[in-house]
């Protein structure tokens, strides 16, 4: 297996003037291609900071970061933007879709910023990504015409459309009820089986149990990093839920 992502001794210090906050105090982590990693930690554990660094939104204060073999730590703003565009798919807690913009246009958006012209036919690819998350019949709906689960699926389709090396999901189920949460997790598991590398940040143990590996952060350090022996199957759990009206 090849390493998709490798960070070594990464620290992050925020200078708030009077005080300095050590958000990360030396984190080493590698994620291989095809893994489904859950990053857990309470508020203030540094998981958001780690997520921002992994997502090339922020740079570490020290330490190395290799993303798909590319050293990230010393790149400028434009190269970071290009890396985000080519290598990373984001799924956010609040969906973060553009309002008053159709699902299709939302999914197409990353391809419009693709300078490498790696992916031709943005429209076809966007349709394919939406079909892949089961929204092939909602192409021209606006976010406010979609349920929370559907909006998150649009966001997942947007994360997939640029064929990223890794998808980073930051509390992707934080705003969803349990049934919809299971639906989203089942989709993640399915995509992971199809070969997608996934890092999911959460503070809920319930959610983390669906990943194949668990990394727990505390006070800016990795406290636990272990494989989950028997991950739960979200599709099966969803089927086991008492039947009610679909949301």
């Amino acid at each position: 297996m090849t390493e998709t992502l490798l960070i070594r001794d990464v620290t992050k210090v925020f200078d708030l003037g009077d005080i300095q906050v050590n958000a990360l105090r030396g984190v080493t982590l590698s994620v291989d291609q095809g893994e489904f990693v859950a990053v857990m930690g309470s508020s203030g554990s540094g998981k958001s900071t780690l997520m921002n660094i992994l997502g090339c939104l922020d740079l570490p204060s020290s330490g190395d970061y290799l993303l798909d073999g590319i050293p990230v730590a010393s790149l400028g703003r434009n190269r970071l933007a290009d890396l985000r565009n080519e290598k990373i798919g984001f799924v956010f807690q609040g969906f973060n879709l553009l309002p008053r913009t159709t699902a299709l246009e939302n999914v197409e958006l990353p391809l419009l910023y693709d300078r490498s012209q790696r992916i031709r036919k943005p429209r076809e690819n966007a349709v394919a990504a939406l079909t892949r998350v089961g929204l092939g019949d909602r192409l021209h709906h606006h976010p406010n015409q979609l349920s929370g689960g559907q909006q998150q699926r649009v966001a997942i389709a947007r994360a997939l459309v640029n064929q990223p090396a890794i998808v980073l999901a930051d509390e992707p189920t934080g705003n969803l009820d349990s049934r919809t949460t299971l639906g989203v997790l089942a989709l993640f598991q399915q995509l992971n089986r199809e070969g997608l590398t996934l890092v999911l940040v959460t503070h809920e143990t319930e959610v983390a149990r669906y990943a194949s590996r668990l990394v727990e952060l505390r006070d800016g350090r990795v406290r636990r990093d272990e494989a989950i022996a028997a991950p739960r199957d979200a599709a099966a759990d969803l089927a086991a839920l008492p039947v009610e009206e679909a949301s």
Partner: protein
Amino acid sequence: MKWRMLLKVALKSIARNKMRSLLTMLGIIIGVGAVITLVALGQGSQRDIEGQVASLGTNLMIIMPGSSHFGGVQGGTGSLGTLQLSDVTALRRNTTQLAAVSPEVRVQSQVVAGANNWNTSIIGGDPDYLAIRNYQVASGRSFSERELTARAKVALLGQTVAEQLFPGEDPVGARIRIRNAPFQVVGVLASKGQSAMGNDQDDVILAPSTTVLYRLGDGKTLRAIVASAASAEQMEAAKADASAVLREAHRLAAGSEDDFHLRDQTEINQMATRVTGTLTLLLSAIAGVSLLVGGIGIMNIMLVSVTERTREIGIRLAIGARPRDVLAQFLVEAATLSLCGGVIGIAGGIAGAALGGQLLGISLVIDPAIIIVAVLFTGAVGIFFGFYPARKAANLNPIDALRYE
């Protein structure tokens, strides 16, 4: 991101807040509209003035007798009866720069036709006079060289005179009496309207110069000699040429004063140009101020827009937009906003000019150059005043922008 996409996003954003966009554009609309209206009216009235100047005659040069002075009493222009028919002959023979020369004799007299009478100017000239003074024959004919030599009693009536003496009739072939001498009306002049000085140029009777000079006048002094230069460029050379010929004909010693005055239309043209120049300066100031105000309005609303759409900017940055892409997006939006205002302003300005021109009786002149300048200028204003908000958007930290509520 491609330009077409940027434009689409910009138009969408403008259309989303129609009222706000319209109010933002209002400054630009009013500024551009006012400038277009005023420039069009200014150019229209300048053309009208030019038309009036041209109606005096094409490349016209007027030679007047000099002023007399006896014992400290200074007579007015023309008080010295120094111009004679021999001068006309000399000018015709010895100048190379003049296309046509004609004497001008003028007599003010009562004119009678049947039961009607009218007091008007009887102007005597050579057949060339009509061309030099830009008179045209509306009906009938002009007089001939033969009639000039024969001092024939033929006359051409101006429109005003024709209406006064022959209301509702065709005067051609009729007879009129000037100072008891019977004249035959051979033609009627086309209307020239008012001169730039407000004189009615149609209140006039034209007759051969010899007829007026010997039968109605004192038989000696000319009121003026009129001539036309071959072209406007040759006017100065023609004036020098005519001046030299006249000095020689009048045997003036070198260094002595001219006993005649040479005038052309450059003075009138200069005055018109000066007025237009002042107007243009004034309009530029108005345009500058209104576009400044409009531009500040655009900057203000773009800043609001950037704040409102902080999250959107965060999303775009997170999924791989470079800061430059965000900059371009907001610049295009500001420029589009400004250009829309400019286009509406141009349309409104043309409508305003048409309306104002109709009300004020000024002809409508729309200069394509001013429209192109207006479009370029409003685009530039949008980009200039949109730059600060756009840069603010582009420099947002994606992490903070995504978390912005």
